[in-house]
């Protein structure tokens, strides 16, 4: 108990005792008994060795030996009740592992997605309008904000860019951003080599320059320093490489190369084109809310200036860390709440187990106390046991967390991870680990102190006399445990019903028809040099169509402006002669889809009326358009639109057919009008190429690449994805979430049932004598059964009521992630409650049956 006081060495003890003898001998000598002195002193001292040993014992017992003794006793005690030890350890490990893993998500994804930048001083500007909650801004807004804002010391812009890198190795489609010249200095972005853009780089007519991302520098140029100041051909123009961004810097999303953003001189008057992501740096002393207020003022001023186009749009400044994390927040917040519930359930369950164990051991404690075991010692013994479980549970939990983090990181496809800069950095978070340890220690304190408080309050006489079956103490303990069981049941209900909701939602997403073929399709971006003539483009389409069709494993290939589900579509404005224009004065809009004849076949788009786009729709023939069923129904309700005409860019286009609907965003987004036109009549330089394969499309990648490189080396391709991967981008996060929640739910369900069983079984064991009396007085078996099982069901019912309330509340957190399922729908919690009630009944029946079969004679004699 006093571990810091130095223990004297054996030599020291011996020396002290020898001194004593010598001093005594000297005194005797001085008194005259010279000769016999040493002997007499020794004799008077008694047995020297015995005393030395006694002194040594004083120290020994307190130290390692006693601790060791505790450890051994604790270990022995746990080994004698392996069920308790294993259950408690696993429960704790589950709670700790799950929480560490989930809380490890928070830092890289939510709190600090851009750790290399001074995030706290950076904001991004989001444009909110009735039609779009989070959109890119217009050049007019950029100009106005740069001019007017005082809270922001600088405002920069970035705009997504896609182009071709062409060199001796061939053509490659690269993606990146055009950024304003001040953006990198505004961000204080670290550079690996060279410099970032500076004023003048973006002047029209300035020598073209580019900054590469570190990942692209490594993968494409093998991190060769010679690339700096060399010239690479991007989009057909030589660009000088002036720098490489710092390692691991991903901004704003994964990019290959950055170019300066050059806006036309009259850009400040452009109120319509929304293509700029705006970023700002807070002026010293300024806050995000000041910047937000200013941005609002700027949008109000713009709305007055150009009321038709800018009304309804509001700019808002938000911390940079929230860029791209809105979706993730939707996921991580419910998971964090869920995991906190799991942790709660785990702690409650361990406490419950510990309580049950103490109750069973009351007699043992009483005997120990009667034999002189001190309370402190008893408490230490219990604490050692608790520490065993906490250490084992904590260690297992950390292992589980490491596995969980890796599993989550690998479950999410790269295409999804690309949008969350922090995803690749995900690992066990140090703070989460410390949090875990705190929970661990907290759990030890909680579930060690509960039994200690109870065990050391043992009333010897009563426990020993009634054999531990005292009614008063038992009832008291059972009440506490009942409360804990109610808690467990309600947590289980919350998690079970939310897991059920999410699972239904994911199933709806999966079974919902996106309108396109998902299997055996490989998609990629393509890009042709911008200076290629339209006739040459047509030749490329046709040539590649043939060559790909001949390649092994490939059935057909189709060109399109955009791939369904890619969320990468653009709009086309049209008017319908004879129909009044929309009330707001704007033209009608539809998704623009320019396709080659084989596109519909590759993607499995069906023709519902008329005909699809075919080989005869070439340049010079009648301008043909296929519209989707949604558009047909919207503009020609109840009529056949085939043969009607629409006007696009002043030209009349004849509707030749109606095609089935295709989702271009996620399934949870509304359907939109779509106009498909023949690629020969609208020759596009960039777009997507869809390839139908005979087998696994991911295996066809090399064949496709080789066929294109040999047939059309000027056509650059990039971002190859199978349609399944494209789909996964929408679904995988929800699949991951529903999977995690289902595991959590299953764990808490088991915990709750085990807890319920424990309480009922223990209650029966406690009340054997009482039950015996009841039976002796004439209570029938059925009555006893009903009595015991009824108690268990009452507990479950209370837990269910609390749990259902919690489930409705938790469901509201989930609303945004649900697809075709309503969170407030009471059927899910009720169904879950029904199941839980049945299982609870089964768990209660076993001990209740045992109670009903109590033999009163034996029970009363015991």
């Amino acid at each position, binding site marked *: 108990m006093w571990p810091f006081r130095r223990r004297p060495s054996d030599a020291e003890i011996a020396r002290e005792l020898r*001194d004593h003898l010598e*001093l005594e001998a000297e005194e005797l000598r001085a008194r005259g008994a010279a000769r016999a002195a040493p002997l007499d002193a020794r004799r008077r001292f008694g047995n020297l060795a015995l*005393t030395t040993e006694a002194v040594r014992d*004083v*120290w020994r017992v307190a130290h390692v030996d006693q601790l060791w003794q505790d450890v051994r006793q604790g270990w022995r005690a746990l080994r004698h009740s392996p069920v308790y030890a294993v259950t408690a350890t696993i429960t704790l490990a589950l709670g700790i592992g799950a929480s560490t893993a989930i809380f490890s998500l928070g830092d890289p994804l939510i709190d600090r997605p851009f750790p290399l930048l001074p995030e706290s001083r950076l904001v991004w500007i989001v444009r909110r309008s009735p039609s779009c909650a989070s959109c890119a801004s217009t050049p007019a807004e950029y100009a106005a904000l740069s001019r007017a804002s005082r809270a922001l010391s600088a405002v920069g812009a970035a705009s997504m860019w896609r182009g071709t890198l062409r060199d001796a190795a061939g053509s490659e489609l690269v993606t990146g951003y055009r950024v304003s010249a001040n953006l990198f200095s505004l961000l204080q972005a670290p550079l690996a080599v060279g410099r970032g853009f500076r004023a003048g780089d973006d002047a029209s007519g300035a020598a073209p320059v580019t900054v590469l991302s570190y990942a692209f520098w490594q993968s494409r140029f093998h991190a060769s320093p010679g690339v700096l100041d060399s010239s690479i051909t991007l989009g057909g123009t030589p660009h000088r490489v002036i720098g490489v961004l710092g390692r691991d810097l991903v901004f704003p999303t994964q990019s290959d190369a950055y170019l300066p953003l050059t806006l036309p001189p009259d850009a400040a008057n452009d109120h319509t084109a929304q293509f700029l992501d705006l970023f700002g740096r807070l002026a010293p002393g300024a806050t995000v809310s000041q910047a937000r207020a200013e941005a609002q003022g700027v949008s109000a001023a713009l709305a007055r200036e150009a009321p038709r186009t800018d009304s309804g749009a509001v700019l808002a400044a938000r911390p940079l860390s929230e860029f791209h994390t809105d979706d993730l927040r939707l996921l991580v917040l419910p998971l964090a709440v869920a995991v906190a519930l799991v942790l709660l359930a785990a702690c409650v369950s361990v406490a419950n187990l510990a309580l049950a164990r103490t109750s069973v051991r009351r007699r043992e404690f009483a005997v120990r106390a009667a034999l002189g075991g001190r309370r402190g010692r008893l408490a230490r013994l219990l604490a050692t046991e608790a520490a065993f479980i906490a250490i084992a549970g904590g260690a297992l939990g950390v292992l589980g967390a490491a596995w969980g983090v890796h599993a989550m990181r690998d479950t999410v496809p790269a295409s999804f991870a690309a949008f969350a800069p922090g995803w690749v950095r995900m690992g066990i978070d140090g703070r989460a680990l410390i949090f875990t340890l705190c929970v661990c220690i907290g759990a030890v304190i909680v579930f060690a102190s509960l039994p200690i408080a109870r065990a050391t309050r043992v009333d010897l006489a009563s426990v020993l006399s009634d054999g531990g079956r005292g009614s008063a103490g038992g009832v008291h303990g059972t009440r506490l445990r009942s409360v804990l069981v109610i808690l467990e049941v309600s947590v289980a209900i919350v998690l079970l019903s939310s897991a059920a909701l999410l699972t239904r939602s994911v199933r709806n997403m999966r079974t919902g028809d996106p309108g396109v073929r998902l299997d055996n399709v490989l998609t990629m971006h393509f890009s042709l040099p911008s200076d290629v003539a339209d006739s040459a483009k047509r030749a490329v389409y046709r040539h590649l169509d043939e060559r790909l069709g001949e390649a092994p494993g490939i059935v057909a290939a189709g060109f399109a402006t955009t791939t369904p589900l890619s969320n990468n579509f653009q709009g086309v404005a049209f008017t319908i002669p004879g129909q009044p224009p929309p009330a707001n004065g704007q033209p009608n809009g539809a998704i623009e889809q320019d396709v080659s004849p084989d596109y519909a076949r590759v993607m499995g788009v069906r023709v519902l009326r008329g005909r699809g786009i075919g080989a005869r729709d070439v340049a010079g023939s009648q301008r043909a358009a296929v519209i989707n069923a949604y558009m047909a129904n919207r503009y020609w309700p109840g009529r056949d639109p085939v043969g009607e005409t629409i006007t696009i860019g002043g030209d009349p286009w004849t509707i030749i057919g109606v095609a089935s609907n295709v989702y271009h965003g996620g399934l949870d987004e509304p359907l939109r009008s779509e106009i498909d036109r023949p690629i020969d009549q609208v020759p596009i330089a960039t777009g997507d190429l869809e390839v139908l394969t005979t087998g696994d499309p991911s295996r066809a990648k090399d064949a496709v690449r080789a066929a294109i490189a040999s047939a059309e080396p000027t056509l650059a391709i990039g971002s190859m994805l199978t349609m399944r991967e494209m789909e996964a981008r929408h679904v995988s996060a929800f699949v991951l979430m529903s999977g995690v929640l289902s595991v959590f739910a299953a764990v808490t369900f088991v915990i709750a049932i085990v807890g319920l069983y424990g309480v009922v079984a223990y209650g029966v064991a406690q009340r054997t004598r009482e039950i015996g009396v009841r039976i002796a007085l004439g209570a029938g078996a059925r009555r006893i059964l009903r009595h015991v099982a009824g108690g268990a069901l009452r507990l479950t019912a209370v837990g269910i009521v609390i749990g259902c309330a919690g489930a409705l509340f938790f469901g509201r957190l989930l609303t945004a992630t649900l697809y075709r399922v309503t969170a407030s729908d009471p059927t899910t919690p009720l169904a879950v409650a029904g199941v839980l009630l049945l299982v609870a009944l089964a768990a209660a029946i076993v001990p209740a049956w045992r109670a009903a079969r109590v033999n009163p004679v034996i029970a009363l004699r015991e």
Partner: protein
Amino acid sequence: MTRREKLELLQGTLDMMILKTLIFGPAHGRGIAKHIQQATDDLLQVEHGSLYPALHRLERQGLIAGKWETAPGQKRELKYYRLTAAGRRQLHARESKWRALVQAIGRVMQPAAES
């Protein structure tokens, strides 16, 4: 020299006496034993086998502190014990308890003297 009958120590009183002895200043084990012996007129002969375990127990509990030092007028280094602040508090507590006990026992043993 007639040998007087040794008195048996009441449990716990040795610790108290050691603490009391040390209130007059640091002392080594032999010094403490001698002091108790002399103060009780040789009535109490401190068993050495119990003196040293007691000293070390008190040291472990932090009530006294031991230190090897050479006292003025001594030739050699001896282990001297001194009272710590905790020891002083403990002594007061034990002393008052002991007084109460002695008084109580006294009332039983000598009821007449009380009235």
